[in-house]
């Protein structure tokens, strides 16, 4: 190989690897956007027994703190925990709580479904669909997000039941 050819080859190889790398990073970032896990066994077990263990990233830390402080009146039900579970889950939520645009403008509401982010993401869902008995309201993620229990909220896995 002469020098010019080698130079052209190197440049091509470099360009291809940069493109592949950037694509991978972008793909990873988009997957991260849709994959929201609730990675604490106790949070999963305690909170997940009555409803999907909602991704902690969907509310800011102050909201989670207020939820943890009012479990005796948790959206109309008693969801009190023993002191050890409350401490561990509270600590976990504090660290995993959302920041940035997902929780921007969340205000005083303790409902994920009232955050501007949630409303934006679900704009196309007709209001009648939420009221179907098969859906059971906006808090029942898994009714439509079939892979929500695995933390996967990818749009491709959404099936709105009749």
């Amino acid at each position, binding site marked *: 190989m002469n020098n010019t050819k080698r130079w052209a080859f190197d440049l091509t190889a470099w360009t291809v690897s940069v493109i592949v790398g950037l694509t991978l990073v972008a793909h990873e970032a988009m997957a991260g956007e849709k994959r929201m896990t609730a990675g604490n066994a106790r949070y999963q077990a305690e909170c997940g027994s*009555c*409803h999907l263990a909602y991704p902690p990233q969907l509310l800011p830390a102050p909201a989670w703190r207020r939820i943890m402080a009012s479990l005796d009146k948790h*959206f109309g039900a*008693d969801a009190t925990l023993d002191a050890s579970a409350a401490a561990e889950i509270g600590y976990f939520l504090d660290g995993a709580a959302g920041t940035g645009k997902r929780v921007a403008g969340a205000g005083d509401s303790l409902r994920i479904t009232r955050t501007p982010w949630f409303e934006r993401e679900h704009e196309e869902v007709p209001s009648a669909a939420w009221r179907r008995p098969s859906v059971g309201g906006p*808090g*029942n993620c898994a009714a439509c997000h079939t892979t929500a229990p695995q933390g996967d909220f990818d749009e491709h896995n959404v099936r709105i039941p009749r």
Partner: protein
Amino acid sequence: MQHERLRVRAGAALFFFATATLAATPAELLKDYETAVRAQSARFAGFSAERGREFFNSRHGGEWSCASCHTGNPAVQGKHAKTAKAIAPLAPAANAERFTDAAAAEKWFRRNCNDVLSRACTAQEKGDILQYLISVK
């Protein structure tokens, strides 16, 4: 060194006993409720599955009964009245995990009695309910 090993062994034994007392059978939990009733009053006329069944299916001043979420048949899967999440069957005959952990049973009685009756259930009421659930085949 010797001392350290002894301490580890004592710790392991303590852990074993602590966990051994947590695991239970529905019949043992029923016995615990009987002990609790007897501790409160000298007279104990036994638990009644029929009384438990009626309690389970009745509203007690609030919006919900036990059956609102667990359905009128505790041997089948229930559904949370608010969140619509599936609830595994409550009757031990249909779900071997039920009433095998005293702390878990107490946790749910604490929460759910408060939701249904706006107060704690008495040991007599818990015993009646458990007697009923054990009788469901």
